[in-house]
């Protein structure tokens, strides 16, 4: 074991030694510096491992060979070892990253760098308050020197502001030290704590100055203008050091010094942290400058850490894990992002499209962002979860709201940025230059994130319940991303089949789960088959597709709320990436993410509220919630964002319409069912039939009905085929919501039938239309026409699809409608029912428009030679058609077991559907799918034969052989009646389709951004204002405290 003092010795010694080298010796200096940075890494890590494994105890190093107060002592305990390890690793990697810049500046810059790292180490280790001051000043000077590295106007300005601000702050620190010594008679922290038994008023003032200075060093909002300028102006490598390194050290100092203060400091810290987290992230939402944006995020994260420390007593034993998770995410991700920003060298986030030039960089970028926002499986997800749960346990919901709101704002700007990176414009001339020394550090940090994720998972209370195998599989898919698409597709399908086979026995006794598992997995396999038509490698598609599907399956498998939420977030993440792959998807995917994020946080809050007063996290506790009104409503709204209820639907049309042809069915036919499943879980937890008169259900019923009407009405006026289908999905989810809200046996049966049907026909329609779009390369229906001749199979698929959609007997759509009517009349929601029926008739309008405008009418010249949709699109379509046919002819095969389950379970014992062979009956009416199919089939066949006999001599004619009042049609384009087909309907009912929701969200968005933009002007750029704010901040905190 090497004594930690050698860390200081090596770094300091080398810093002095470098001064001896001549200016030309940069090469040697570089090597020497690297070596001298590597040794501390070894020392600190070995200490960390030894202490962690219990082989060594924390040691105190007494300098000058005597004990305090006559000497300065350094401590190397577990925490210190951890933080010094982090700092030293960062130092080493940061040096590798910065080496090119540093070499340009010569050996003195390297010496400065060494001094900085040394300073940070000492700041962490020292237990002497004055020593702390000295080394903090050293760090300040080193940082100020490194800011100068960039050597442009902005960095000078920022450096000056930094110096003045930090100088003033450290002077306050010095005042504090003076009082500290005056009243405590010692400079040793431990000594002071020991002597703290006689706390006098003067000591409080000392502690005030000391802690407030450290807080100010951590850049609390709004006294942090100088810090933002530094982040923006410094070289990204240096910004990384400041953000991850000095902030790490400072946060540890805060942690170290807190025992000095009284309990009230924890509360102050919480408030300060909360204000910082929320405020900084809020102001970040309208920020476009890359590094400044990272600065906002950085400050926000530190605010969150302050909150965590402030809640130390409440978090109890979970504190370590939470702190670790949040800290490590911030530490790794923020450094990584700053480094990437240095590689990309773009000032505005809108120019980050260039990042696509490198897969590895894009991958790392994504990882860092997801880690920051707190998506699973990254550590901050566990941290946030645990923190929220602990806070919920003590009923601190306001704080949870603040954390979630701040995270939401953070997600907002980070995902906007990600959107620009994945989809932003990019000029072809520019190439991303990635030297190895620049990419290695972020790469290592990226990998470390996964390791940290593993540890966070194992430290988390519920972490061991997460099934990690799918995640490993997803990682594996990343690794084999270089293979051609069809191999990966086969592997994926194989994995899903394997999973399905293994899953079935474990859930086979719960038909409800089986139904949804079938929708998710069979649907997944079918849509993946369509993926075979894609040539090339299709990079980055499969991991996320699998992620989405496993997320969905995870919902079904979830036994506790943690697993549920984990799966929910996984699904959101996967689907987001799938959606953003579309050509014009940037905006829509961003909307999707915002709504998903907002929804997820509402669910999170709902879960937290449910868990209040409950010991376990079983899904059932939702029903035991001590504040059911809140938790039900929050959870319901959260799930409704995924099912796109009217008002929350505005993300859906764009996201579904602009997605790739085979992604649309995934996200429409299948993904939406995730939300439905969530609602089912919620409603079951509410207690099934007993809760049927809950006012929430009544309003959800109305919402469902209005959604159905609005969605269909909007679909009618669309010219874009996929958008039409997307709005239709909105409406269909409205039906399902409505039927679920009945909370009766038949109502639920109807909802499940709808769900199955919607899966079948919407997947079918999206695949069919997707195949058409793939061939004709346009979404606009009026540009198509007459494609039945080129694409007869797609036509059949669409025909079956719309017959099912419209609920026309004999196909299975009718089953849903029939059950639905019985449910409406049984339940007594007549007017809502009529509204939904009206919506159903409106569905005819767009069904006709869809099939007519695309397949019938006048063929266009451009599409004279288009081929039938790829066979890989047709195969799943026809499997689905077979599914529809079976379900139509023998609905009892599916509905009987579901009905049995609903009836037998304690949830819906009464008023069930009774079966007599193939005839279903309620106490209102009866229906026999099999016989109807038979009767209609026979009749149709007879009539067809008759017609074929009667008109056996029929001349086949072409498109222009139509009666045109003695004229001939001019061109196909002018003869095809399709554009604005329902203008008369718009005249009559168009006012109902006014985009109120869009307008509302636009205004909300606008106002939020305006406020953020306006508040941002607080940071005037004037150093003096910043100082004034700092002083005002001190005074305000002082006034609050005393």
């Amino acid at each position, binding site marked *: 074991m090497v004594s930690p003092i050698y860390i200081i010795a090596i770094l300091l010694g080398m810093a002095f030694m470098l001064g001896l080298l001549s200016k030309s010796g940069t090469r040697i200096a570089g090597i020497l510096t690297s070596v001298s940075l590597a040794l501390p890494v070894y020392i600190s890590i070995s200490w960390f491992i030894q202490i962690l494994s219990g082989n060594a105890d924390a040691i105190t190093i007494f300098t000058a060979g005597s004990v305090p107060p006559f000497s300065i002592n350094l401590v190397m305990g577990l925490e210190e070892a951890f933080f010094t390890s982090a700092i030293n690793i960062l130092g080493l990697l940061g040096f590798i990253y910065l080496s090119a810049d540093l070499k340009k500046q010569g050996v003195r810059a390297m010496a400065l760098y060494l001094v900085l790292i040394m300073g940070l180490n000492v700041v962490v280790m020292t237990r002497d308050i004055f020593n702390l001051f000295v080394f903090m000043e050293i760090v300040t000077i080193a940082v100020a020197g490194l800011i100068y590295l960039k050597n442009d106007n902005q960095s000078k300005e920022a450096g000056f502001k930094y110096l003045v601000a930090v*100088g003033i702050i450290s002077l306050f620190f010095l005042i504090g030290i003076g009082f500290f010594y005056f009243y405590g008679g010692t400079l040793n922290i431990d000594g002071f704590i020991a002597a703290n038994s006689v706390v006098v008023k003067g000591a409080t003032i000392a502690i005030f100055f000391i802690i407030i200075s450290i807080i100010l060093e951590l850049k609390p909002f709004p006294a942090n203008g100088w810090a933002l300028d530094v982040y923006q102006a410094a070289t990204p490598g240096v910004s990384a050091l400041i953000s991850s390194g000095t902030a790490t050290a400072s946060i540890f100092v805060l942690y170290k010094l807190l025992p000095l203060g009284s309990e009230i400091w924890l509360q102050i810290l919480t408030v300060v942290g909360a204000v910082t987290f929320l405020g900084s992230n809020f102001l970040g939402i309208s920020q476009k400058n890359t590094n400044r944006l990272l600065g906002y995020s950085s400050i926000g994260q530190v605010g969150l850490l302050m909150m965590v420390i402030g809640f130390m007593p409440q978090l109890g034993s979970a504190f370590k894990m939470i702190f670790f998770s949040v800290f490590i995410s911030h530490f790794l991700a923020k450094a990584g992002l700053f480094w990437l920003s240095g590689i990309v060298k773009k000032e505005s986030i809108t120019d980050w499209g260039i990042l696509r030039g490198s897969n590895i960089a894009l991958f790392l970028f994504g990882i860092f962002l997801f880690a920051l926002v707190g998506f699973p499986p990254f550590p901050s997800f566990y941290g946030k979860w645990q923190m929220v749960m602990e806070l919920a346990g003590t009923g601190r919901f306001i704080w949870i709201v603040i954390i979630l709101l701040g995270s939401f704002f953070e997600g907002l700007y980070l995902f906007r940025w990600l959107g620009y990176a994945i989809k932003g414009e990019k000029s072809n001339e520019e190439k991303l230059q990635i030297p190895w020394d620049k990419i290695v550090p972020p790469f290592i940090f990226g990998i470390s994130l996964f390791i940290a994720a593993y540890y966070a998972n194992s430290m988390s209370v519920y972490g061991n319940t997460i099934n990690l195998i799918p995640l490993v599989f997803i990682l594996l898919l990343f690794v084999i991303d270089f293979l051609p698409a069809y191999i990966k597709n086969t592997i994926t399908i194989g994995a899903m089949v394997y999973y399905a086979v293994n899953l079935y026995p474990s859930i086979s006794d719960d038909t409800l789960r089986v139904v949804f598992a079938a929708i998710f997995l069979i649907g997944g396999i079918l849509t993946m088959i369509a993926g075979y038509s894609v040539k090339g490698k299709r990079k980055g598609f499969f991991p996320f597709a699998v992620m989405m599907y496993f997320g969905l399956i995870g919902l079904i498998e979830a036994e506790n709320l943690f697993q549920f939420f984990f799966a929910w977030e996984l699904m959101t993440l996967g689907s987001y990436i799938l959606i953003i792959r579309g050509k014009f998807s940037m905006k829509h995917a961003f909307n999707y993410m915002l709504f998903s994020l907002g929804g997820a946080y509402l669910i999170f809050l709902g879960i937290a509220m449910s868990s209040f007063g409950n010991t376990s996290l079983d899904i059932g506790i939702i029903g035991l919630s001590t504040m059911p009104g809140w938790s039900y409503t929050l959870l319901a709204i959260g799930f409704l964002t995924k099912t796109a209820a009217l008002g929350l639907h505005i993300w859906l049309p764009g996201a579904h319409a602009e997605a790739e042809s085979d992604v649309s069915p995934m996200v429409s036919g299948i993904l939406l069912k995730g939300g439905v499943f969530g609602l089912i879980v919620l409603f079951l937890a509410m207690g099934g039939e007993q809760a049927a008169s809950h006012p929430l259900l009544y309003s959800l019923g109305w919402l469902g009905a209005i959604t159905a009407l609005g969605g269909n009405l909007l679909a009618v006026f669309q010219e874009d085929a996929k958008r039409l289908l997307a709005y239709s999905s909105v409406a269909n989810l409205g039906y399902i919501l409505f039927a679920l809200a009945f909370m009766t046996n038949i109502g639920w049966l109807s909802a499940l039938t709808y769900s199955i049907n919607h899966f079948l026909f919407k997947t079918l329609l999206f695949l069919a239309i997707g195949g058409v779009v793939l061939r004709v390369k346009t979404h606009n229906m009026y540009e198509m026409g007459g494609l039945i001749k080129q694409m007869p199979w797609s036509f059949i698929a669409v025909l079956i699809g719309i017959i099912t959609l419209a609920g026309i007997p004999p196909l299975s759509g009718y089953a849903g409608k029939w059950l639905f009517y019985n449910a409406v009349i049984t339940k007594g929601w007549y007017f809502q029912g009529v509204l939904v029926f009206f919506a159903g008739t409106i569905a005819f309008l767009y069904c006709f428009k869809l099939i007519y405008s695309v397949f019938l009418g006048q063929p266009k010249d451009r599409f004279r030679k288009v081929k039938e949709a790829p066979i890989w699109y047709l195969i799943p379509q026809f499997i689905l058609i077979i599914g529809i046919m079976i379900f139509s002819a023998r609905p009892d095969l599916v509905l009987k077991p579901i009905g049995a389950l609903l009836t037998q379970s304690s949830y819906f014992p009464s008023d069930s559907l009774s079966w007599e062979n193939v005839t279903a009956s309620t106490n209102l009416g009866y229906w026999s799918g099999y016989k109807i199919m038979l009767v209609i089939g026979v009749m149709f066949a007879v009539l067809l034969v008759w017609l074929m006999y009667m008109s056996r001599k029929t001349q086949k004619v072409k498109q222009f052989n139509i009666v045109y009042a003695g004229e001939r049609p001019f061109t196909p384009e002018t003869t095809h009646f399709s554009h604005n087909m329902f203008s008369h309907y718009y005249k009559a009912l168009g006012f109902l389709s006014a985009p109120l929701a869009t307008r509302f969200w636009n205004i909300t968005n606008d106002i939020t951004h305006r406020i953020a933009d306006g508040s*941002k002007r607080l940071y005037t*750029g004037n150093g003096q204002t910043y100082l004034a704010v700092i002083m005002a901040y001190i005074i305000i905190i002082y006034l609050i405290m005393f």
Partner: protein
Amino acid sequence: MTNLFSIEYITIFTSFALLVLGLWGIISQKNIFKIIISFSIVNTSIHLLLVSLAYIRNRTAPIIDSAVDRVNAAEKVVDPVPHALVLTAIVIGIGITALMLSYAFTMYKQHKTLDINQYKSLKW
């Protein structure tokens, strides 16, 4: 009850006066050099404060020489630690000030102005 005009109070008041003066200067002065000077004043005021806090009536400076013998030093001299601290703080203060000045110099070289209001390219 000590006299308000005794040396320790005077130094403390002076240091606070200087502190306020310096802070006021930092906030109100537009010239960068004046800001740096104000900063130095604050620095000095705090040094003064530290020293005055260490002062114990009727004792001498903590220098062990013929006047103060080694044995009774603990009763005859003022607390030596703050003095040591002040020495260090002065050194550090000089370092910071020097760096500030060099920044100010290079800033002036480029913009030919010392008005801090002109350096607002970074904001919002």
